[in-house]
């Protein structure tokens, strides 16, 4: 607030920078901290786990160890520490994939407008109306051993049409802004208009959507495990742990509740972050 005197026309800083505003956002900060903690657990967990992920330490569903044992007598705490990274990485990649595909569809539809918009969104509706479980099972049947990228693609594809809807909605509000017309009047290429003018302005709502999608991804990756769709059946994996030990909820609840809890906390973290980002974007501009 001191620049005013120097030059009469030099603008003063009326709004703090985005980073500073982000740090002032309680939701965003607490969400980021929670998320970071879980991510750290997932990354560093294998290093500090008391046992190997497949090491048998006692009878099945017994109270041996901090969180007891699971259906095979493996240590729940160790599996919890081992089983995060794969889930998080796959969920993250799947979210990214779904977001990218969805955003491309949505933005292209919004930017093209008119007839193209109608056709693209109609086809999008068709995909939305198609039961996802069928898609999952087709892929399941088609391949012997699912590879990680297939899960990524499968989960991503289930996100894409939904993201596309959101992205189109957001983009519609931007493609009609004058700066986009300004770029067109200059004769910018369509791809550049989309990449340089439209997309950067969709950051905040898309980040918020991404947070939400990440949450769903984790649920979906876990759900696919339920259908027998996981890359490495014996490796620890939060989603699979829930399914493997579901039967023991009443006898050895930690085998189920621990992964549920950690996924739940992670979800809250990412949701808080998404929420904070959304609020930030509302206050900005």
């Amino acid at each position: 607030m001191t620049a005013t005197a120097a030059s009469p026309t030099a603008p003063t800083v009326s709004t703090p920078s985005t980073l500073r505003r982000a740090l002032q956002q309680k939701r965003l900060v607490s969400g980021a901290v929670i998320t970071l903690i879980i991510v750290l657990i997932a990354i560093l967990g294998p290093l500090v786990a008391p046992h190997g992920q497949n090491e048998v330490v006692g009878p099945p569903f017994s109270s041996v160890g901090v969180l007891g044992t699971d259906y095979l007598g493996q240590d729940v705490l160790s599996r919890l520490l081992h089983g995060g990274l794969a889930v998080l990485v796959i969920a993250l990649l799947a979210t990214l994939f779904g977001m990218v595909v969805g955003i491309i569809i949505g933005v292209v539809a919004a930017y093209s407008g008119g007839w193209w918009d109608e056709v693209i969104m109609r086809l999008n509706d068709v995909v939305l109306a198609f039961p996802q479980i069928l898609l999952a099972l087709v892929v399941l049947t088609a391949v012997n051993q699912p590879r990680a990228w297939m899960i990524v693609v499968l989960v991503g594809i289930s996100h894409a049409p939904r993201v596309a809807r959101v992205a189109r909605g957001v983009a519609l509000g931007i493609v009609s802004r004058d700066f986009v017309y300004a770029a067109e009047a200059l004769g910018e290429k369509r791809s550049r208009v989309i990449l340089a003018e439209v997309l950067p302005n969709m950051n905040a709502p898309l980040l918020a959507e991404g947070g939400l999608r990440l949450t769903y991804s984790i649920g979906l990756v876990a759900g696919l495990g339920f259908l027998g769709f996981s890359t490495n059946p014996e490796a620890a994996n939060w989603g699979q742990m829930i399914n493997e030990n579901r039967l023991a909820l009443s006898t050895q609840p930690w085998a189920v509740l621990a992964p549920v809890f950690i996924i739940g906390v992670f979800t809250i973290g990412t949701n808080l972050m998404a929420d904070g980002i959304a609020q930030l974007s509302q206050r900005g501009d």
Partner: protein
Amino acid sequence: MADVAVLPEPLEEVAPPKGRHGSVAWILWIARRLGLAVLTLWLVSVLVFIATTALGDPIRAILGKDYNADKARVAQLTEQLNLNESAVKRYLDWLGGLLHGDLGTSIANQRPVGQLISSNVLNSFVLVLISAVVLIPVAFGIAMISANYRRKRPDTVIQTILLALAGLPEFVTGILLVALFSTTVFHWLPAVTIAGAGHPWDQPSVMVLPVATLVLAVAPYVSRIVRSTLLEVLDSDYVELARLKGIPEKVVLRKHALLNAVVPGIQVVSLQLAWLAGGVVFVETVFNYPGIGALLVDSVRNHDIPVVQALSMIIAGVYVVVNLIADLLSILLTPRSRTAISS
């Protein structure tokens, strides 16, 4: 088309609403939307057919261990599924049957698919309907309370609880509810659905826990969306004017704000309902509820292709119809869109 929308040509003198011939416009609009819905369903049917065809040789999957031992069944199933015909012919036959309301015959138990799935479809429909009836006032009520206390303590508490609930997988919610109300702590409610030959709701207490689980799974999301829309509306000029006019806060919230926040709410609720109709596998599993989610998983596992196809089309149909209704409601509740159609 986008060009038109951006023209800074505000406040043009608007023609008065046109009278009777608005109904023609409505019929045209509905016809167009129905046409699009049919088109969507047709494309879905193609996808469903391709997907079920891609599932591989259904007979091996159906007979499993018995494939090599039961040649007669192999021949019989080949006959029944017309596997000797070309895929295009099979698709056209199936589509033709579909249009005549003939869903084919289940491979798993040789019953007409229509008869086989009708009770499950009805069960799911009722479950979703009751859930919706409970969900809508609960979600909107919570949103209104939360918006009323915007960013004060009660709002924060409610939002945190909703976030936590949203992070809980629904089967965990279900299992916890069962433990709490049926088996471990209290013994108030039945744990699972035992329908016998009738319908689950013949014994209304059976419906309580599944409905509660579904509501707990969906309400947080709906409520959060409605809350944020409400907050947006509460910041609007017309709400400010209503306050400056001296309208009591309760009336402002109920009449001025809610009326305008309800439309995005409808869209969210409709999406969630469409999802519920096809995706309540976990809840149906936990409560042994005989609905279409469980039946679909089951049929896919059995490679009961006619049933899978029929259920997929029903789920797609529900999605399309619910969307159509939601769009219609949104337009009816938004005077601007409503009058735009009739003029």
